[in-house]
């Protein structure tokens, strides 16, 4: 397999990528992105329906539940291409939620409906002031059939049918996080939408004696579950970087200033080269981490280095892309700014560098 996993996808993967590219070119126009942004939901029902019918949300779900049983690697190919084509973020969140549920509970009775696209899942993990699972305070109610707590910045909270809610260890039977699956439309769930940066609808959600559909154990595999979630973000980020570079290349070859294409200026060329160096190395680290995560062969710092480098590179590449685009890329109608928002928003949520750097240091020094 080796690097070919990335440089040469399998024909099925290539096929899937092509389908995504065509879909996004046709359906994810800038006019619609602006419209979805205005809606506040980030997506409309028609496109959500179309994506569900294409089977993308269920791609990585078990075959027994009607999914395609695809590997993490296959899903990453899909996600990268979706991100490149600016597929609305709530849809990527639903894909993420579906996988999150399937990875915890491949036997969950909800999965069949999720695979059919009839129900959607979102993750409710972070809490105001608590990002580490060890600090979560949302917990089972004394009745043992419902939960209480507040989750923050839940993406797609108002639209997703099911909330996969992370519970604090404090109440714990286990030492690993436990999850509760909650019906968003059920009693005790109140959703407070937020005006937030990043072009994905977010909300604070309060669960007050909210009945639990299913209890799920994080179990000893929880760290791996977390890494897989981050891996999806890495694939998203690689796709976004690729799009930012493509747009920049097209622009600098086209735009003229001082009587010549700006690509002729060495300073412009060298900024493109630096984008290329960062993109290429970040993409390799991302795909190395994803493929080794799948094969269970992660080396010492493979995952952590990928997280740090991809997360920082995406922001950096977007900034250079904006710089080289000048005013033309700065209007709200330009796709570039959607990528740039995702760069920062994904980084904040999935790839902050501080904890990864701390882990790398601990690996080397402690």
């Amino acid at each position, binding site marked *: 397999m080796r690097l070919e996993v990335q440089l040469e996808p399998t024909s099925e993967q290539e096929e899937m990528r092509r389908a995504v590219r065509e879909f996004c070119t046709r359906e994810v126009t800038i006019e619609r992105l602006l419209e979805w942004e205005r809606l506040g939901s980030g997506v409309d029902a028609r496109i959500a329906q179309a994506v569900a019918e294409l089977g993308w949300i269920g791609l990585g779900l078990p075959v027994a539940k009607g999914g395609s049983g695809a590997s993490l690697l296959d899903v990453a190919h899909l996600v990268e291409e979706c991100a490149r084509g600016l597929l609305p973020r709530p849809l990527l969140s639903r894909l993420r939620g579906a996988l999150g549920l399937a990875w915890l509970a491949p036997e969950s009775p909800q999965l069949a409906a999720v695979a059919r696209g009839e129900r959607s899942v979102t993750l409710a993990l972070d809490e105001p002031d608590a990002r580490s699972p060890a600090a979560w305070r949302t917990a089972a109610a004394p009745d043992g059939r419902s939960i209480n707590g507040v989750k923050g910045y839940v993406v797609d909270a108002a639209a997703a049918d099911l909330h996969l809610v992370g519970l604090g260890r404090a109440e714990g039977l286990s030492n690993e996080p436990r999850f509760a699956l909650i019906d968003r439309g059920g009693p005790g769930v109140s959703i407070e939408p937020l005006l937030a*940066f990043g072009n994905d609808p977010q909300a604070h959600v309060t669960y007050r004696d909210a009945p639990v559909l299913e209890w799920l154990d994080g179990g000893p595999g929880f760290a791996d579950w977390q890494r897989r979630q981050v891996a999806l973000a890495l694939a998203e980020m690689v796709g976004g970087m690729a799009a930012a570079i493509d747009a920049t290349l097209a622009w600098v070859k086209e735009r003229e200033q001082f009587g010549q294409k700006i690509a002729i200026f060495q300073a412009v060329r060298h900024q493109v080269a630096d984008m290329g160096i960062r993109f290429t190395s970040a993409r390799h680290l991302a795909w190395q981490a994803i493929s080794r995560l799948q094969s269970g062969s992660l080396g010492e710092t493979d995952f952590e280095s990928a997280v740090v480098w991809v997360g920082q590179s995406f922001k950096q590449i977007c900034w250079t892309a904006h710089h080289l685009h000048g005013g033309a890329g700065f209007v709200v109608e330009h796709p570039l700014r959607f990528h740039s928002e995702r760069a920062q928003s994904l980084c904040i949520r999935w790839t902050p560098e501080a904890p990864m750097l701390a882990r790398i240091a601990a690996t080397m020094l402690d």
Partner: protein
Amino acid sequence: MDYELSPRERAWRDEVRGFIAEHVDERLVDETRLRGNEGRGPEAQRFLDALRARGWDRIAFPVESGGLGKTAVEQWLFIDQIETAGAPMLPLTFTSVAPTILRIGTDQQRQEWLPRIQRGEVDFALGYSESEAGTDLASLRTRANLDGDHWVVNGQKMWNTMAHTATHNWLAVRTEPDAPKHKGISMIIVPMDAPGVSVQPIQVWPGLRTNAVFFDNVRVPRDYLMGERGLGFYYAAMALNFERLSIGSAGMARRIFDALVRDVRERVVDGQPLRENPWVRDRLARLRVELDAARLLALEVAIRLDKGEVPAAASSMAKACVSELAQRVADTGCEILGLDGQLHAEEPGAPVKGRLQWLYRLSPMLAFGGGTNEVQRDIIGFMGYGLPRK
């Protein structure tokens, strides 16, 4: 303050501080932030009136022209204090257009325009850029042809910020089509309510509005052309020289950084005070070093202006340095605030009033706008270090 201020400078700074303490409150700061480019709100109007009552709208005017005769260092102290307080900057009408008219206008033009500016009846947008002439101003195509006693203006301006709230446009137009590119440009004033002027909004990423403005056979009186025909390129450069003090100021980045620091001091994440996190401590300390460094580049610009220099290289240094630093402040700041840092200014409880994610969106413009940083670095090489052009 920096490199020990003179007693006169210290007195002036204290006077400005006193003024700010009296006239800048949270309502003004909030209004300024939330209005963006949507014109002055009532608080800003009150603030501007108070400034005018002291004659501070003419801070850059020589005493003999009714101004305060402040040195560039004193003006920079003023700008720095205003920016640090988060109050609205003096409009470019006062700081760039009026001083230019004072220098290039005929007696009649000065008598016509300066008192109206001073009374607040006239407010300019600055119309230089076009879609094909951004950093390369000399390539502009909007033209004005003389027809009897009137100029007839045709063309289109881009990034004409404030055009929708201004009363007049300070426009660079081509009047001498046969002259070499740089020599064919003049500065002309166009009232925004003149027939044939239409304004089309352009929304940009940080949530600000700018405009494309179209001129379709717009007629303006002959003496609305300011100064001499064909010297517009140099007049624009002169106006730019008046802006140098604010272009390279690190005041805004510093204000947002200071607010970030205040937030971090109080913030608790996962039960731990965020200020104890070594990564946060290191990143904030490094940014503080860079902010301290950038600030002095702006001071150098002021000092060189006071010596009568055109501090092209120094102001290019300050501009390139501050704009790229603002990006690092935004980038690191967003990561430090985490998910909370995504909240928009309008969301109650947004930390640092949503300024970090806003600065993240704004900062690219600081680097490509006002002459791209590539051009700034070329200027540093050519003008600062005498590197050969060919």
